């Protein structure tokens, strides 16, 4: 009998997922001092190659992407079965079925999914900085249906392949599927109405925490603290070419980097989803 104890923390990159994971760590640790950003458990990343190899007894480096995909749901089921606690798993994959009846992320072990979404205009800028790539290149990436992490088959990346698709497709895959309960969180709401936004997410997961506990965890996860920790000790999730992981995190920072053509291209490509999530009005005017 499977138990529902897995919470997927899901997003397209640079959309607030790491901030929420730091907040959760602080909320669950309940220690006096802020959690160390480098102590967010590595095994909690759903694409961990080590977890896959340990649980299957096979070397993922000897398997094709399709063979790995087929086994991933079973790995999650076994992890869920072995755990007496809630399992929080960071996800960047889009939601998809690996076979006719098998979702990559099995509904029968899923307690909840929190999906983080951010204005794609800001995502493009932040992602470009993170990957040390040009903004036009990242605009292309946001519109690439084949976009994936770790999908080279001529070398061995440290994580399993993750299919992301376009930004719009990623959002749709999670928010429009009907087999897993999803609570969508806008990054902009995390910034402007932090307490209520985080509280709603915690309520959705079903964690019994007081408003005071949530407030204290938010304070310990303040951007200035994360940024200071990174300055002092580095952050292992930063890409080597990027200067820092925690950059600005500001809403509307795209205005400092995108020209009219770049802006219009993103709006054209992702118009429907941007409207659906309150980034554009019916007349294509930006709301944020």
């Amino acid at each position, binding site marked *: 009998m499977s138990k529902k104890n897995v919470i997927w923390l899901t997003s397209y990159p640079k959309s607030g997922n790491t901030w929420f994971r730091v907040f959760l760590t602080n909320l669950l640790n309940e220690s006096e001092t802020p959690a160390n950003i480098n102590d967010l458990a590595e095994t909690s990343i759903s694409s961990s190659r080590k977890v896959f190899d*340990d649980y299957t007894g096979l070397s993922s480096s*000897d398997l094709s992407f399709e063979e790995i995909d087929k086994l991933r749901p079973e790995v999650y089921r076994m992890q869920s079965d072995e755990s007496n606690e809630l399992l929080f798993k960071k996800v960047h994959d889009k939601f998809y079925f690996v076979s006719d009846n098998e979702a990559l992320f099995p509904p029968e072990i899923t307690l909840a999914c929190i999906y983080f979404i951010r204005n794609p205009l800001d995502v493009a800028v932040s992602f470009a900085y993170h990957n040390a790539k040009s903004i036009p290149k990242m605009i292309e990436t946001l519109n690439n249906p084949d976009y994936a992490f770790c999908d080279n088959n001529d070398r061995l990346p440290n994580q399993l392949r993750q299919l992301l698709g376009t930004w719009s497709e990623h959002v749709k895959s999670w928010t429009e599927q009907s087999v897993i309960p999803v609570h969508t969180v806008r990054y902009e709401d995390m910034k402007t109405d932090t307490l209520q936004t985080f509280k709603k997410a915690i309520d959705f997961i079903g964690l019994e925490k007081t408003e005071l506990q949530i407030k204290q965890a938010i304070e310990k996860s303040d951007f200035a603290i994360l940024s200071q920790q990174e300055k002092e000790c580095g952050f292992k999730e930063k*890409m080597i070419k990027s200067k820092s992981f925690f950059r600005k995190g500001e809403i509307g920072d795209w205005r400092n980097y995108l020209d009219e053509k770049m802006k219009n291209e993103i709006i054209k490509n992702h118009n429907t989803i941007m409207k659906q999530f309150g980034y554009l009005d019916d007349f294509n005017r930006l709301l944020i």
Partner: protein
Amino acid sequence: MYDYLQMTSNYFTYKAFGLIIRCEFEIPEFIIDNGNPDVLIELGAVPINLNKITKKGVKFQATHNEFLLTVDDVARFYVKDGSKIVVELLKNKPDKEVRLFLLGSAFGALFLQRGLLPIHGSAVKFGNSASIFTGLSGVGKSSIATYFVIKGHSFLNDDISVIDNTLMVIPGFPNLKIWKDIIEKLKIQNHKLEEIRTTIKKYHFPVKECFHKNPLPLKNIFIIGTKNSPGYEFEELKGLAKFNAVKNNTYRYRFVGGLEKMQEHFQILNSLLPNISVYKIVRPQSPVDLEGFAYFLTNTFKLNE
């Protein structure tokens, strides 16, 4: 032990990992030998499930003396008492794909059943001893071993480095598995290299002339990690950190079936650790600079002395 005379004459006999292995089908990766076999590999039906399972994974089951592994569309492997492997084919012949998993996870289980210590990594000869490069998959264990081999060092093992109860590193077989990007980086002629599987750009690199056939004492274990900043760093591990680091890099540690085997495993670790040095090495995640990494290792740890 199996009665040599009772076996059919068309079996193949090899020596690998210090064991005489007799197999119903050809294993070209191994070195031909003769003598009474320690391990028998046969084709046949294997159990659907094991009884009294002590460890279970998505594709394996283990008891204190049995192990069962399924590789979909390839084969099922049943390993018993550290002396027998039965292979049930899920395809028409025991080809390179079958051998890939046989020489990987199935042999890993066999070593653990025999009370050997298999470390997940490659062993290279420096001076009169061996050093093992271990760490997570993708960290470059085979790549750095290949670099040293190309520069004239002998090697003993790729992927699984076996240590016996006399604390010697036992040679495996003369083959490295390397990814296409490393083949290109090291300018290795690749027109004759065979892919491990058709869908994966990882190749067998046979290196008979560089293979060291005799056991060597282990001197160092290097646990390789990566970081997102330039330069190399190292730290010598001591005490519990040393014990845990080697335990965690045991090949298929989750296969260790049952308490008894676990105690045996800890005993060999406890006798080994006072006699070796264990270092955590951190290299930049990119670019992969094998020459610079080898230079750092050689000079910092005086590997050529």
